[in-house]
């Protein structure tokens, strides 16, 4: 296998890695907000359930969670998930998405929560005196400031996600890391790992650059 052929083969894996990465963010960043809302709910059973969910997501390995999402339905309920698909997506990919989104949403939720809790009570009181409604206060005054406060922590999480996508290989999702392993074994070459490493490095560099630009765009105030 020539180097260009190898690159071409691995490019499809890179695309799958990027796809998983983007879909996970698109799902977990908003879902994390819903999780915070549930955790802060006045309806206590919901708040407790949410707390348990967060504890499990953060307390067990993501790899294990992926296996549970994929094999769980078959073992627990005898469902034949292999044939199951939504919008032409095979269950393998759906299980991956569920696993990644739920896991990352839990981490994002904790980050949002600490951001919300760090807001000075004076902001709420000033808004209350001026007559803002609760939603106006949250979305207009609190949330924009929380976004700025949590951005560095979110960046860390996003960079971890770039690397965590390699865990998808456990469900034989052919992202860049799985392909590197396969090609390396079949060609008895170390080169695929170098390519994968360079890919992750560049991906993280791009992510860090985007997040820095976002942080910069909010530096007009302290």
């Amino acid at each position: 296998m020539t180097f260009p052929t190898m690159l071409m083969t691995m490019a499809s894996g890179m695309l799958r890695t990027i796809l998983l990465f983007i879909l996970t963010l698109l799902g977990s960043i908003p879902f994390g907000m819903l999780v915070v809302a549930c955790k802060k709910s006045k309806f206590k059973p919901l708040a407790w359930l949410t707390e348990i969910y967060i504890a499990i997501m953060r307390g067990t390995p993501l790899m294990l969670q992926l296996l549970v999402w994929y094999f769980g339905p078959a073992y627990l309920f005898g469902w034949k998930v292999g044939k199951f698909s939504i919008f032409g997506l095979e269950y393998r990919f759906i299980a991956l998405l569920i696993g990644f989104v739920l896991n990352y949403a839990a981490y994002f939720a904790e980050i949002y929560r600490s951001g919300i809790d760090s807001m000075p009570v004076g902001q709420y009181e000033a808004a209350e005196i001026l007559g803002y409604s609760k939603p106006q206060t949250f979305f207009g005054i609190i949330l924009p400031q929380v976004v700025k406060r949590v951005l560095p922590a979110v960046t860390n999480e996003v960079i971890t996600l770039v690397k965590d996508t390699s865990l998808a290989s456990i469900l034989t999702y052919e992202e860049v890391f799985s392909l590197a392993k396969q090609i390396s074994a079949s060609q008895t070459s170390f080169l695929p790992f170098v390519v994968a490493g360079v890919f992750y490095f560049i991906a993280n560099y791009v992510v860090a650059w985007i997040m820095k630009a976002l942080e910069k765009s909010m530096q007009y105030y302290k």
Partner: protein
Amino acid sequence: MANTNMEIENNQDKIVLKMENIHKRFGHLEVLEGIDLTVKHGEVISIIGPSGSGKSTLLRCATFLESIDKGEIVYLDKKAVTTSNSGKVIYSPKAEMKEIKQYFGLVFQQFNLFPHWSVLQNVMDAPLKVLKRDKKEVEAEARVLLERMGLADKADSYPCNLSGGQQQRVAIARALAMKPEILFFDEPTSALDPELTIEVLKIIRKLAEEKMTMVIVTHEMSFARAVSNRVIFMDGGFIVEQGDPEQVFGNPSRDRTKQFLKSYSEQA
């Protein structure tokens, strides 16, 4: 002419705020033990007293940031809170409270400006979003207000780039933009250096001359003496003494007031 004079006189008799027998507890701590406070239109009232005497709590109860445990609060013609014979404290329905809340503004010790908005946005946003007023009108008024606060050139600045005194003046403009009937100040200059204190006090004095109804918690004794129509001395959750500033400062009738004023002049 006669008519307008009459109107002004009528206005001066208008009672803007009436608080009666206000009680407030935090756990077992009795912080307000039966406070009565009536504020007439155009009156400027200073509240002085040692730290922990309940001054902030009184303002926070008046502005509904804290709920009361007993008593009555009426703004103009609208009852906000009453206490039934059985001792149950009843706040008016939400819609009515929303209207009542537009009668007052509050200026905080820590300014509490919205840091992510420019000065102009800070002043304009509530009239736009809460009162749903026309943008052009609101902006014109906001600029006039900033001009009056001596901040015309700061409209596009962000709070973090202003001095404390400038921030507090923006906070005053933000409160005035809602056209309150009465404005409360909770130690508006306590977070400021002496030079910056002066510029904020000047603004409040100007408002007093324009007959803005105000209740000011302050430790600036000479300011309180010069500006207010009435001074209230609070201690331990009670109003110990109140009256004309010359009387309270020049010839206090209670020993506790004398002690407090003496300790204050010694500090200064």
